[in-house]
């Protein structure tokens, strides 16, 4: 994939900088982007909750491909690992634990929908206008990869090690917080027989005591 990205990058660099004569990388990017966007739209509009989660997988995976196209390979793999691998699984667990209905649920959208649509469209219009106006002449040179795992790792543990450690503390705090929130009704969740990841952590917490 790194090689492929680099190849696309050389192609892009050789091409003239115009919207009417796109490079291969751009075409790929736009196509994957359309898929991603479509998956995202389906995610927020479908009436089947589990399908929403699955379409979210598509959208997040599409984003991982976009990262690859932008030569940020490490980010892409992290994206796949964490989002597709854990976050979506957590969301599915959440859906199950809240007994989300399987199949089409008539009330997936709230009555706020028209307002939401208006706000979203207005925001989209404004932002697209601003972004397109500001960056339409800018060109990303993809000749040499910017985010190889090698470089990212050395930078992360050399320059960003302190925020990294702080982030680990934050993750620990989040873990403890999730345990505390779940433990309050630990007995009831045990009776329900549906221990999630956090209840599992709660159990291990109990065992440590």
């Amino acid at each position, binding site marked *: 994939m790194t090689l492929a990205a680099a190849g696309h990058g050389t192609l892009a660099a050789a091409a003239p900088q115009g919207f009417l004569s796109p490079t291969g990388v751009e075409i790929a990017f736009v196509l994957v982007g359309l898929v991603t966007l479509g998956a995202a739209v389906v995610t927020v509009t479908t009436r089947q909750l589990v399908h929403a989660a699955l379409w979210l997988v598509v959208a997040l995976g599409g984003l991982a491909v976009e990262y690859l196209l932008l030569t940020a390979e490490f980010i892409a793999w992290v994206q796949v690992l964490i989002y597709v691998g854990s976050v979506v699984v957590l969301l599915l667990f959440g859906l199950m634990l809240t007994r989300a209905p399987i199949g089409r649920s008539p009330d997936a959208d*709230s009555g*706020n929908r028209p*307002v*939401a649509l*208006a*706000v979203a469209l*207005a*925001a989209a219009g*404004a932002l697209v206008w*601003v972004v397109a106006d500001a960056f339409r002449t800018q060109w990303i040179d993809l000749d040499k990869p910017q985010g190889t795992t090698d470089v990212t790792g050395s930078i992360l543990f050399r320059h960003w090690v302190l925020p990294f450690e702080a982030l680990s503390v934050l993750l620990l705090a989040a873990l403890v917080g999730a345990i505390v929130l779940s433990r309050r009704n630990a007995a009831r969740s045990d009776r329900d027989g549906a221990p999630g990841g956090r209840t599992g952590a709660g159990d291990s917490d109990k065992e440590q005591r």
Partner: protein
Amino acid sequence: MTTTTLAVLVPLLPFLGAVAGLLLGRRVPGLARPLAVLPALTSLALAAIVAVRQGGDAAVDAATQLTPTGSVPIDLALHIDGFAALVAVLVGVVASCVQIYSTAYLRDDPRYPSYAALVSLFTSAMLLVVYSGDLMVLLVGWEIMGICSYFLVGHYWETPEARAASLKAFLVTKLGDVPFLIGLFALAVDADSFRITRILATVAQGGLDHPTLIALLLLAGVAGKSAQFPLHTWLPDAMAGPTPVSALIHAATMVAAGVYFIARLLPVFAASAAALVVLAVMAAVTMAGSALAALAQDDIKRVLAYSTIGQLGYMTGALAVGDRGAAVFHLLSHGAFKALLFLAAGVIIHAAGTNSLAAMSRMKDLRARVPDAYWTMTVALLALAAIPPFSGFFSKEAVLGAAEHTATGHAESAPETAGWIVLVAGLVTALLTAAYAARLWLLAFHGRGPEAPDHGRQPVAMTAVLWVLAVPSLAFGVTVGVLPDWFDGHKLAPTLTTSVLGTGFALVGALVTYGAWRHTTALAARVPIGAVAAHPDADAGQVEAEAIATHAPAYGDVASAPDPADPGRLLLGPLHRHAAVGFHLDALYAALFVRPVQAGARLVRFLDREVVDTYVRGAGTAPRWLGAAVRRAQTGNVQTYLSALLAGTVVLAVAAVLVATAGA
């Protein structure tokens, strides 16, 4: 100690006593009486020492300036001449007597500590007025007396009469104090100083630019304080206060302050002949009118109150003819016998259980119940009626003599008109004074009917004080030869003409009253009238409060009684009805001032309630409607809130971008 130090201590001691009494009186009741009596006695002794040291020589002057006070400096100054020294002694004597008397009179009163402290403060303020050599400092004492009189007259504030009287006293005296203050400022600006000595020096050089204006402004304040026509109406009503307070106000403080003030600044007034004539007219109207009114009063204390107004009229009359020696002489002797009269009246009211002369005239042997009061009051009434050889005779003859002196054109400063006005009014008043004194004496002590109730012996503290005061009432006249040394040097001894005239008029008045009394007294038995207070064993203060409170319900009016046996009714004839209510001055003031003010207040209230508040309510209603509308938006739905928030963000962002691109 120097004379100055002693003189500073004289007003300071009662003040400290008042402060200590207010702080400690309620917590340590045992201290209230010593704290009241001892400072008064000490400052009396000190005032006597100061008087002896001063001895009528050159005035003692001392001044210190605490801090710069702008263009016209205000000093803490003493100016003790013969007048100040003697008046201070009088104040000390009367205040001490009143304090001692009060310990028994208000024996069971729960508010005695604050009462005694206020009396001390009152005394202190008067002594300050007497000794002060600076008009601003004098004004401080002047105003403290005003507020103390408000509190003391309203001592029985449970009764509506006392509340109304205290308010009236305060407001009427303040009404005079406003022009007084302006007059002081005008005087100070003309003389460039508040110091009395400097002002008098300026006057002597003819440095006053507006003598008449200043004198008239100051006269307004004096009329308020000294209860001269037309601002005298507060004084009879002030009888709603306890009797010792009346004695204090009428004899030595408050009312005396006005006369004393003119005496101090007489050259200022003498600089304007018009002011002197106004003063003479004021004195004449005051003394004649008040004497007529006194003849019609039923409340024994109101008779004395009107007599005070009349005697003050004598003093202002003496000042109007430019003889302050005579005025202060009369002030001193009047202070002694009027204090005695009031304190004796308190004893009588206690013994009789009523303050109504009509009720007393239907009691037998009241004089046997209170022999001390009977004898001392007889002395005091003789002094009041100016029968020789009592003190009142000499002082009143001094006044009449001065008036005659001026009327015949011998005086250098005062106009002859003033002399004639004062002389004629003084003689008429002498007749009337003797008449009402005789009426009081006859009705109070020579009643017929059932036996007076026996309340046992009066407390020694009350009766002993009467005898102490009887001495100067009897014998103060012997000082007539010495006093001119203390004063301006004018001869004060009675002249033959005025003596014969005055005494003759007085005798005529007394005899006519006696005749009338003989004529009417037969009616007394036929018309039973009278009410007796219900607490024979209570202390005198409570009996008096009860008597004042029941007078209007029992007799229909707070001042008079429908008693056909009253010799005053026969003597005055159709005038009686008007004299009883003080010649309708109160009604006139009510129509002229009170009702317009009340109407204005109602108008303001209407404007405030109906007009201003409408705007306020309108200003409140619009936001309330707006709030109700906004409240509907508060659905509790987080998504709605978030939508609004983000929509606003988008709008703001777009606006910011537009502004930025437009500016670029």
